[in-house]
């Protein structure tokens, strides 16, 4: 079966050099999910120095051809100006991309996840005014991702007994069975997470821990490198932006 896809909306998740002048690109598209393709000659520069390399975090209209897993990208037209993320915004963007890259299977469409991703990227804004995603937004993305993959959190009842979750109860959460009586989380926290009410710091911390456990379970031993990088970055002093070079040589 030869695929011929025209004008599909999508984003670049990651690219790496391929052969002399091409790139191997991993795309996240609206109707075809994650797609891997070869983008020919994108590492060459035209005579005027223009680069045709795709940028991540920017929406494109993509066309590709090919049979089998590896497609050939034949056209990519940017649908918006390039988004050059900096500092925290950049690290949170990399985190979203790596989550999709590691967890979404190739050629499985996830339009809900796509629209959540698009919406979050839209909130970054442009240039120096770009804002990082806050914790609640990152948790929201993780929950949509798990829902879409069929691994959604079950937070209204206990996993094994099916008993309704009580605000006054104490629970543990297991990725494969759900909430069980325990001591890690309060029922109140779990119900707040289920309702998407992440305003309270304790609820946010619980959601972070809970989602991390579940995501790690589904990563099946794979490492999320951007998570460690993001944490190291935040541990350093991040108070001031990088000044552009002003010193004369």
């Amino acid at each position, binding site marked *: 079966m030869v695929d011929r896809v025209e004008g599909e909306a999508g984003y670049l*998740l*990651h690219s*790496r050099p391929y052969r*002399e002048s091409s790139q191997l690109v*991993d795309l996240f598209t609206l109707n075809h999910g994650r797609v891997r393709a070869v983008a020919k000659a994108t590492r060459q520069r*035209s005579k*005027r*120095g*223009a*680069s*045709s*390399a795709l*940028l*991540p*975090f920017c929406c494109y209209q993509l066309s590709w051809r090919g049979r089998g897993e590896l497609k050939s990208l034949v056209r990519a037209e*940017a649908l918006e*100006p*390039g988004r*050059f*993320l*900096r*500092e925290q915004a*950049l*690290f949170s963007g*990399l985190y979203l*991309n*790596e989550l999709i*890259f590691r967890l979404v299977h190739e050629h499985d469409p996830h339009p809900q996840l796509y629209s959540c991703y698009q919406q979050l990227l839209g909130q970054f804004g*442009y*240039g*120096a005014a770009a804002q990082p995603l806050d914790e609640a937004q990152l948790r929201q993305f993780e929950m949509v991702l798990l829902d879409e993959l069929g691994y959604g959190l079950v937070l209204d009842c206990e996993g094994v007994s099916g008993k309704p979750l009580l605000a006054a109860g104490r629970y543990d959460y297991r990725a494969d069975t759900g909430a069980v009586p325990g001591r890690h989380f309060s029922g109140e926290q779990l119900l707040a997470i289920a309702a998407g009410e992440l305003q309270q710091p304790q609820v946010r911390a619980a959601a972070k821990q809970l989602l991390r456990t579940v995501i790690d379970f589904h990563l099946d031993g794979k*490492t*999320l*490198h*951007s998570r*460690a*990088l993001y944490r*190291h*970055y935040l541990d*350093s*002093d*991040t*108070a*001031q932006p*990088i*000044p*552009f*070079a*002003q*010193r004369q*040589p």
Partner: protein
Amino acid sequence: MYGPSIDRLITALRVMPGIGAKSAQRIALQLLERNRDGAAELAASLIDAVDKVGNCSSCRTLCEGERCTICSDSRRSAQQLCIVETPADLFAIEQAGGYSGHYFVLMGHLSPIDGIGPEEIGLPILEAKLASGEVDELILATNLTVEGETTAHYISSRARAAGVAVSRIAHGVPLGGELEYIDSNTLSLAMQSRKVI
């Protein structure tokens, strides 16, 4: 097809960038038919280089011996440290001239999806350098790709934590560039990172 030695040579030649099966075969036959002296010299120089070329203990660039010529040049200032991704980038800046500090060569860039983290690009060595107090200013000359930017922002946060001043080389419109011919990404970045004059 030609016998084990020629087949082995053809396979070996394909390690070179841009050399596919066809070119490898052409090169192998050409060397054996017409230039055996050249082939012997190529083989000897490869063995010699692989044996003698290592990484500079101070800046990690390719060099023969313990320290490279830049790091051992007493006229150059160790207080300024320019961070580049590859020895080729170092070479490009040296060719352009005007810089008289030291370098640190990452031999790559951070790329979470490829599993390349701070250790893989020698950042513990860089952090030890920063902590030693010998560096006053760090100049980030990583590539203008998302990986290069990630690397720059990451190193910059570590440098600030160590109290070292950091700058990033400017990027935007090329010298002599006419705006109407510049690709839209470059122009849009130039707009987004504009500065007061």
